[in-house]
């Protein structure tokens, strides 16, 4: 570390004075750049598509090709977007930072590459239907030819090496199954929810409700406050939730109950999962409910005691029907996989993915009726094959400028 720091200082030191002197010029140019917003023709539109998707400007040759595609109309513009998505930086920069905040509680993008991120990147690269995100027995790892440490279910070294060596994830990731590497039975895999990174972030300690809440936030675009419904039966709320917090049952009846009545019967699907920080691995105990489900059981002894990992979606009734549950699914089941299917086949999931892409590509939220109509069209398109690449392309074309 010291050696590298010294090297940096060696390079940087002679330029310190010059840097300060050039800074003024840089700021002048910065102002110049900001002021130069002109109407966009096909060339400018093509550049923006590339900028937004790959995160970097196109080479002249690529720009010429994309310009021609954009000139050919909407379908051509979609082709141009696919051209931009062929740039390795779409995977190594755009998608990596798209998914990174989902993999930790802080929503931090500055986290090392991990199996959750890599699996999202790989699914988008291979156009794996994205509604399998929360249920598939799927994992993306680095190609053995990359020469990085092999995948381990007890540490993240494999992915950190891929990132630090700047390996191209467009070519360097290969698809495999979680069950073949992590020791989980295939029926216990639930897409990114059962990746090591997700387990480390959301199955560690606590009560496993975090996995559900953060999945709701990241993939349904609703936090618990948005699905607060006090009218649903509280019969599945666990014993650890105080019914009289600080001696005031009004808090429970007006607040706590509104989230827990729907969340607890869903989070029951994770009853057999835990992350063991000592081994660094996910644990799965089929048939044996994790002790964390009985934390603080004396807080309200007359609350629900979790007998197994069966789950029920209470939000199929009441106001939270607005999340658009798939009528072809039963709304209840056993284990995380079927619960993940329940979430990922809802309208809210599809809408959430589209809005996240819109936000990532257009650099803003949908803001008016025109935007919302576009989002609706993109959701319809997305649900035909759950192709995230197509959604990225559609968003880039919509926001390529006039």
């Amino acid at each position, binding site marked *: 570390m010291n050696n590298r720091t010294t090297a940096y200082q060696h390079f940087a030191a002679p330029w310190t004075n010059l840097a300060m002197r050039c800074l003024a010029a840089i700021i002048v140019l910065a102002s110049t750049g900001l002021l130069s917003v002109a109407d966009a023709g096909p060339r400018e539109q093509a550049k923006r598509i590339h900028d937004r998707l790959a995160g970097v400007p196109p080479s002249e040759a690529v720009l010429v090709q994309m310009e021609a595609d954009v000139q050919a109309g909407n379908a051509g513009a979609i082709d141009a977007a696919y051209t931009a998505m062929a740039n390795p930086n779409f995977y190594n920069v755009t998608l990596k930072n798209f998914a990174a905040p989902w993999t930790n509680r802080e929503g931090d993008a500055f986290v090392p590459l991990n199996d959750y991120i890599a699996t999202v990147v790989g699914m988008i690269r291979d156009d794996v239907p994205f509604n399998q995100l929360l249920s598939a027995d799927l994992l993306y790892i680095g190609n053995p030819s990359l020469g990085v440490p092999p995948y381990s279910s007890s540490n993240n070294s494999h992915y950190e090496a891929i990132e630090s060596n700047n390996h191209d994830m467009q070519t360097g990731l290969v698809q495999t199954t979680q069950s073949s590497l992590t020791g989980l039975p295939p029926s216990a895999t639930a897409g990114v929810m059962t990746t090591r990174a997700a387990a480390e972030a959301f199955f560690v300690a606590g009560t496993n409700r975090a996995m559900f809440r953060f999945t709701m936030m990241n993939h349904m675009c609703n936090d618990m406050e948005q699905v607060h419904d006090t009218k649903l039966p509280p019969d599945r709320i666990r014993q650890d939730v105080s019914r009289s917090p600080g001696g005031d049952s009004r808090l429970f009846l007006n607040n706590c109950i509104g989230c827990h009545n729907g969340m607890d019967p869903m989070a029951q699907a994770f009853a057999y999962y835990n992350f063991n920080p000592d081994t660094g691995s996910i644990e799965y105990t089929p048939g044996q409910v994790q002790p964390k489900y009985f934390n603080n059981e004396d807080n309200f002894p007359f609350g629900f005691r979790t007998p197994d990992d069966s789950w029920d979606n209470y939000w199929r009734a009441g106001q939270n029907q607005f999340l658009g549950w798939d009528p072809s699914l039963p709304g209840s089941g056993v284990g995380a996989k079927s619960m993940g299917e329940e979430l990922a086949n809802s309208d809210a999931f599809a809408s959430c993915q589209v809005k996240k892409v819109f936000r990532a590509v257009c650099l803003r939220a949908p803001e*008016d009726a025109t935007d919302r109509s576009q989002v609706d069209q993109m959701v319809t398109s997305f649900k035909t094959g759950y192709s995230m690449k197509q959604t990225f392309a559609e968003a880039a074309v919509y926001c390529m400028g006039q």
Partner: protein
Amino acid sequence: MDQVQVRSMTTPALTKRPLRASATAALAAVLLAACGGGAPTTENPVTSETPPVGYQGPPPATADVQSFKLNVWDNVHTSNRCGACHNESVNQAPLFARNDDVNLAYEAANTVVNLTQPGNSRLVEKVGTGHNCWLSSAQACADIMTTWIEGWAGEIATGGRQIVLEAPVSTAPGASKNYANATVQDFATLVHEPLLLEYCAGCHSSSAPTSQQPYFAEADAEAAFEAAKQRMDLDDPANSRFVLRLGNEFHNCWDVGCAASAAEMQAAIQAFADTVPLTEIDPALINSLALRIVDGTIAAGGNRFENDQVALWEFKTGSGTTAYDTSGVDPAIDLTLSGDVAWFGGWGITVNDGKAQGSTSASKKLHDLIRGTGEYSIEAWVVPANVTQEMARIVSYSAGDDARNFTLQQTLYDYQHLLRSTETSLNGDPALSTPSAEEVLQASLQHVVATFSPVNGRRTFVNGELRTGQDPVPGGSLVDWQDTFAFVLGNEVSNSGLWQGTIRLVAVHNRALTPEQVVQNFDVGVGEKFFLLFSIEDIINVPTAYILFEVSQYDTYGYLFNEPRFITLDESQQVQGIPIQGLRIGINGDEVSVGQSYANLDSVLDTAAFGELGQPLSALGAIMPLEKGPEDDEFFLTFDLLGTQSYVRTGDPALVVTPEDLPPAQRIGIRTFDEINATMATVTGVDPETTAVDMTFQKLRQSLPAVENIQTFLSSHQVAIAQLAIEYCNALVEGPDAATYFSNFNFDQAPATAYSETNRNQVIDPLIDRVMGIAIQTQPDFTVVRDELGYVSSDGARPDNLIDRLLVSPDNPNTRAIAKGVCAAVLGSAVTLVQ
């Protein structure tokens, strides 16, 4: 030990179910478990046969008479209690307190006690209604009398108190007025402002100099409304507590006199009640008959382990400023509430900013009785208000911050036990704490018992479980205890150790409770519980068919309905295959919209599933909001399906989210950290893994923009971008590809030659083309940027531009240095950053 019997008042011929009536001792144990019972009752401790000094009559003839004498007669025969009248001299019958012959007193007492249900004794009833109660609270006298009779009963019965389920007098759910339909504004206009603020705010307001709970005269109408609800009867304003307090109890009437004050108050409440519409029960509902809590059978109370209990506070009074010690052990340490201490519904006090303290003379009882045994237990049911308070005294027998006999206190998630002994300091240090990592203390109702004995040292039990390890301090003796300290709850006696929370029961024992005894008291629970029998016989056409609930007031704002069962009081009734689905609880004519734990109930009523208390329907509890108060709220049950009758329920529709337009956002943004790095690598052709570049990037990564919003761009971002740009340009100019990138530019020439008017574009043009792009109208104009970097006018003049300024710089930069500067100026600018 509770024993439950079932009796029908409406069908005398079917008084008891044979199964239950034949309950044996073993069965009683089963029934106890159903009621939350624990270990068996053990004998009372003191069995002296020697009459105390002062009693000159014949000795007790039997062990039972001896027990009567010790537990009851010794306490009541004195002249300041029943003995003032019920003696052979005054001859006020019954002579249960006569001094001449305890055996005759025993005979008289047997006519006025109920040893099966001590709480139902005539003696208890009399003092409970105020008949010569020696305290200011009739309830406290009744509790103490109950304790004495229980002590006597405990000597002769191992079964403890019996609970008899009797058919209640039920009514159809009536229409009533509910606060849910009332507005704070009407209350404020009609009651609060004209009367409460005018006449009551001098005391019943938190800002009053002598503030006195409840704060129904608080300036904030909403807070006042909450406090006033239980003191107004919307269905019968004349029965309102406010009215009765003025009219009957003459409590601080105003200048028009008490009758007129009461009339004014009644009129105001009537006017307010008139604004509240009647709630009519939906005729389509399938509903049971209705009950109030007071129509139920008391289900709690008799089987705590109390043999060594020397002080007990149950906080039943519910008003005033005294919390009575109802242990029956004299002298009673009655506690004076001071500061902001409120009574808690369902028995208890809530300490917000005050304390409950006994006198030092009465507190001396603890010193005397505990020092004699050398061991003790502090038992409490508490609800900490939060888990952030530190060194907050819950129960303390102390003199201030630096001197104590014992203290139970909270520090964050821990219970801590301080004790003065020969092995600890005068302040009880070091404290014994529950393990912090286990977060034993929670802001919910907890049963905590701190014990001390010389053998085991200190031990702390929470919710029946031992939660401390071996006390590191050897068990010492208590010879250093002081008898001048005061017993206090919720604070230090000096007011410097405030604990915020609710205390629902405190007991002090002069023995260390065993783990079994702790569990026994934990299992009994706290507060008053009732069995409520909701009649459904008319729905399923089965005589004496009921849904049985155990109901208690859970806190000031809610009830706990627990473990519903189906039961028939007439056991000859055979029930089979009756479906029951969707049980909900209603209050005051309307189903409660929240907390319906049994809404998904789906079962079949069947005699074959009967246990001793009928057929369990659910093990869950349900919290219901308190509306008018436990004496007035009327409950009933509804069913989606019961027998052949059903109710079709329409659920709430899906939420309709109406999107709102957002303010127009910028269509452009800035590249973020990794994008900036990748972009610089792309446009310079420099490998980002180059050591110096990578090190700089890793160092600067989190100083670069993290979000695209252009309005979040900071000057510090620009500094980081400039540093990274310079590093990339250094790598480019010094690297092997410089000659290709800047074709036809000779880096080996002196600066003046290299950057001649004709040569300088060999540096400028490739940079602009690669970094900014060619002919992109959304980027700055090519010539503007070029001129900024190195403009030369047609007449050869060279206005201020970067290259010319560097050429005359005192740093005397060489050709490569100038190229790096020009490169960095372009690369670190908005043409790279903006996307």
